[in-house]
């Protein structure tokens, strides 16, 4: 999972800032808490006044009050205000932690947040107010959990997930069942011991114990995400634990409802067990089906959004949320629905939407899930302070020990079985990490909270035990997992990106293995993957992806993206060409800069600094064509007062200047025969012209000096495609076929009207979306997800 954090700021005046922050927060809290109590009085007095008015009105005998110039009416805005306050608190806390880099290095954020929650809860209690029931189950399941799961599902790395699906399912289903029954059963047994001194434990029957076991046994995706994100473990382990935490939701839902239903009755028959199994299949598959349906709908909708780009992200979010709610409506697994929805729609939506929408979706998801996660942990702390507790030493300690023991036994046992079927076996180190990474979290707590006090008199004891386990796993396991990972030298995540060689060869090997499987007559993994890919290419992509993108093979898409990224890096680092000093070398592309600090070293490594001339030419063409596309995209922003990114424009200008200079140099030397990737069929010329005409912010190029050929585009009459002159140099270079393409490419060519010939022409547009994507992609190092093709 990509990190949601920025780099740490220096710890210079951190303590002071931290203290200040805390102070502000406390003041805000006190300010909100006090009126809570006082809220009722102004309200009633207000009502009384109203009544008085009405009554006295009737009597036509009212006393006129002075007109209230300034009034305080807290009650009016109470709920939204409190919500906003909590969110603000959560965000400030998050900021605060990063002002103290040492602390966040040692202690995972989740721990810090829970501590803050405890503090806040304590403060509220001290102030004498009632702690608001923040971890209300409805709030949790309907508002706090979906963003996190959607974020996880949308950016789920499909390939490792599918490759390890069998293992993940084994852990999720069998592992959780084992945990639930083991813990529940043994707890019951333990509760029955000590006949000498009867304690309240004796009253607990088997079914509530099993219910408790099922609540506590599920690995929690929120906690796993929070902790694993910081340790950057290798992809395999990450996907195993994370996938397990997501998929065990179905099991938990079924077990929970099953035991809850029958706790009242007191016994479960074999029939019920059988129904439970069927119910599990329904819950799981139904959830996935609901999610997939909504995902397809979203993909289909995104096909038509080319005219209203601004609301594209909205479709993604709303469809996903509706998938979740629909699944919850039928008591299906909402989490699986959400995952299925996100994973299904992603390849198609990404092919359809504009680059900015893509960025928006990414950022919104990250933002919401980050805030949600923060809030959840804080609320956990608050609820701990608040919740009615009933501490029972035996119960709690036995629970904690049993959780650990059952997890270890479960993982070891399952791995033994799974390794028989895996090509890449799981080593002991892996098993340890998987077992240790089985963190419990807020879901368990919320489920416990949902229990009905009447049916479960020992609810408080359960809650206490759950909270203890959660605290234990988050604090102890969360804090120690990082040093342990270092100690055991577990393989870390590979940060480097895929090269085109890897991409080509991987595809080649896929085909090879499919062929071999055909020869052996064995319908294995590759065979089905190949079939699915073919089906996808033939039917599905045509329906769900708009325009020409549907035919684009994934290798080409990958190649485009790579090329462009490298082009950007080249430009950033000044390239291999000696630039006149007019162009500042510190092109601060804020968008890309923060994560690309090592990048300037990379181009030197990836492509030798002595680039062949052809390469530069290619890069220039890519850059130029991208500029055109960027310009065209600006239209949608103007309409809704989203100001076009000034840096993009500035960068564009810079690029143009750079290109002019490169051209000048090139003109002097001979041009090599170069190779570029020609355009995909573009938008119609009329549309391009229309866009440009309406876009006042487009072309702001200014001539730098007389020697630099300038681009002057008269907005009123943008150049028509017919006025394109193909370069003589082109003909010289023997690229006749390209000549025809020039004509119907890009509706608008940026040509200086004065110069009859220029090199490196026009819109050698590449695929617009991939290009623009790379240009203004400010993403945190989340590019790994983008590199994942559909079922690669």
């Amino acid at each position: 999972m990509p990190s949601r954090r920025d780099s740490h700021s220096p710890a210079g005046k951190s303590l002071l800032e931290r203290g200040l922050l805390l102070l502000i927060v406390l003041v805000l809290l006190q300010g909100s808490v006090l009126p809570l109590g006082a809220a009722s009085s102004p309200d009633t007095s207000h009502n009384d006044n109203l009544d008085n008015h009405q009554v006295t009105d009737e009597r036509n005998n009212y006393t006129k009050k002075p007109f209230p110039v300034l009034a305080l009416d807290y009650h009016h805005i109470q709920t939204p205000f409190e919500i906003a306050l909590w969110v603000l608190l959560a965000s400030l806390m998050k900021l605060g932690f990063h002002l103290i880099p040492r602390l966040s290095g040692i202690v995972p954020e989740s721990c810090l947040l829970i501590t803050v929650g405890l503090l806040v809860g304590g403060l509220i209690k001290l102030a004498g107010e009632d702690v608001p029931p923040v971890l209300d189950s409805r709030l949790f399941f309907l508002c706090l959990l979906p963003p996190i799961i959607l974020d996880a599902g949308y950016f789920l790395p499909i390939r490792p997930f599918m490759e390890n699906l069998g293992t993940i399912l084994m852990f999720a289903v069998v592992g959780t069942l084992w945990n639930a029954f083991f813990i529940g059963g043994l707890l019951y047994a333990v509760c029955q011991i000590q006949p000498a001194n009867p304690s309240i434990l004796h009253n607990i029957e088997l079914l509530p114990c099993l219910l408790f076991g099922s609540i506590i046994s599920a690995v929690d995706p929120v906690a796993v995400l929070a902790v694993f994100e910081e340790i950057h473990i290798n992809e395999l382990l990450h996907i195993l634990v994370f996938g397990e935490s997501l998929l065990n939701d179905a099991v938990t839902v079924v077990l929970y409802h099953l035991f809850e239903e029958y706790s009242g009755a007191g016994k479960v028959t074999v029939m019920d067990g059988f129904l439970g199994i069927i119910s599990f299949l329904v819950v799981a598959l139904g959830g996935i089906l609901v999610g997939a349906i909504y995902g397809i709908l979203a993909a289909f909708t995104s096909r038509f959004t080319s005219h209203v780009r601004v609301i594209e992200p909205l479709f993604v979010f709303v469809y996903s949320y509706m998938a979740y709610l629909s699944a919850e409506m039928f008591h299906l697994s909402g989490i699986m629905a959400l995952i299925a929805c996100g994973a299904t729609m992603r390849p198609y939506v990404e092919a359809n939407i504009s680059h900015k929408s893509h960025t928006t979706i990414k950022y919104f998801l990250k933002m919401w899930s980050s805030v949600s996660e923060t809030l959840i942990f804080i609320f956990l702390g608050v609820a701990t302070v608040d919740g009615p507790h009933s501490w029972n030493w035996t119960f709690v300690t036995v629970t904690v020990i049993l959780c650990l023991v059952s997890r270890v036994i479960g993982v070891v046992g399952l791995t033994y079985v799974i390794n028989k079927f895996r090509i890449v076996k799981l080593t002991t180190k892996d098993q340890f990490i998987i077992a240790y990474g089985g963190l419990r979290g807020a879901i368990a707590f919320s489920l416990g909270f949902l229990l009905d006090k009447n049916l479960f008199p020992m609810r408080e004891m359960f809650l206490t035990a759950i909270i203890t386990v959660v605290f234990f796993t988050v604090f102890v396991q969360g804090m120690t997992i990082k040093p342990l990972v270092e100690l055991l030298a577990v393989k870390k995540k590979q940060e480097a990106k895929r090269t085109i060689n890897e991409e080509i060869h991987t595809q080649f090997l896929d085909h090879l293995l499919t062929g071999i499987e055909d020869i052996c007559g064995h319908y294995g993994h590759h065979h089905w993957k190949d079939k699915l890919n073919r089906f996808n290419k033939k039917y599905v992509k045509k329906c769900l992806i708009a325009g020409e993108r549907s035919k684009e093979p994934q290798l080409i898409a990958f190649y485009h993206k790579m090329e462009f990224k490298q082009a950007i890096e080249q430009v950033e680092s000044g390239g291999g060409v000696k630039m006149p000093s007019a162009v500042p070398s510190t092109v601060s592309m804020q968008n890309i800069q923060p994560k690309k600090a090592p990048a300037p070293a990379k181009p030197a490594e990836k492509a030798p600094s002595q680039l062949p001339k052809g390469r530069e030419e290619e890069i220039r063409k890519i850059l130029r064509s991208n500029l055109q596309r960027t310009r065209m995209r600006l239209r949608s922003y103007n309409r809704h007062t989203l100001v076009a990114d000034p840096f993009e424009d500035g960068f564009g200008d810079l690029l143009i200047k750079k290109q002019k200079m490169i051209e000048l140099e090139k003109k002097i030397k001979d041009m090599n025969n170069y190779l570029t990737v020609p355009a995909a069929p573009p938008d119609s010329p009329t549309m391009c012209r229309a866009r440009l005409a309406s876009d006042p912010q487009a072309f702001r190029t200014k001539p730098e000096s007389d020697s630099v050929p300038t681009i002057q585009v008269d907005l009123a009459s943008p150049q028509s495609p017919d006025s394109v002159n193909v370069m003589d140099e082109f003909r010289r270079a023997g690229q006749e076929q390209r000549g025809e393409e020039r004509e119907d490419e890009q509706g608008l060519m940026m040509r200086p009207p004065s110069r009859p010939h220029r090199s490196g022409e026009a819109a050698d547009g590449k695929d617009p979306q991939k290009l623009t994507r790379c240009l203004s992609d400010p993403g945190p190092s989340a590019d790994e997800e983008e590199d994942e093709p559909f079922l690669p």
Partner: protein
Amino acid sequence: MGSSSSRMDHIPNAEQLMQETGFSAAHILRLYARFEFLDKDERGELRPEDFGALRGLAMNPIGDRIIGAFFSRGKETVDFPSFVRVLANFRPTETNTIRDGGQSFSRTRKLKFAFKLYDQDRDGKISREELLQVLRSMLEQQVTEEQLQSIAERAIQEADLDQDDAISFEEFKKSLERVNIDEKMSSHFLR
């Protein structure tokens, strides 16, 4: 396994094959059954047409290369031992440590096999033309010639360390050092 041993007698050099490739007796039998299935004319050896009869292989973009890999240079038919030897390349490896991408005999062997598929003229290097051919067959008709040229150019540039405009086996191996070859080039069926 009494009856199987009598069946094994049909298979020439079964013991030797098992030794060489590491397949178990059950595997050899299975492969022999498959061999016989493919060998429609019951000749005792396979010809390219027999492979071509497989629909999946016909649709495979590099199907003809795969078929070609079974036939050693100059020979027109494949007998059972050669068949098994080629398939032995795709056995999953036994040890766990390979996952780290460490150099092992079997990994190199698999890579060599893949390399041979690229390098049709067996000169020990993947030339630009050979790479173009592979790309052409993989991407079918969906791309233009210039796009292919660009990709090939880029790929060679990335991998070619000694600047000879072709990819040698060492360079090939290096460019794939991050990929888990054992996982990508193993089939369960041949365990």
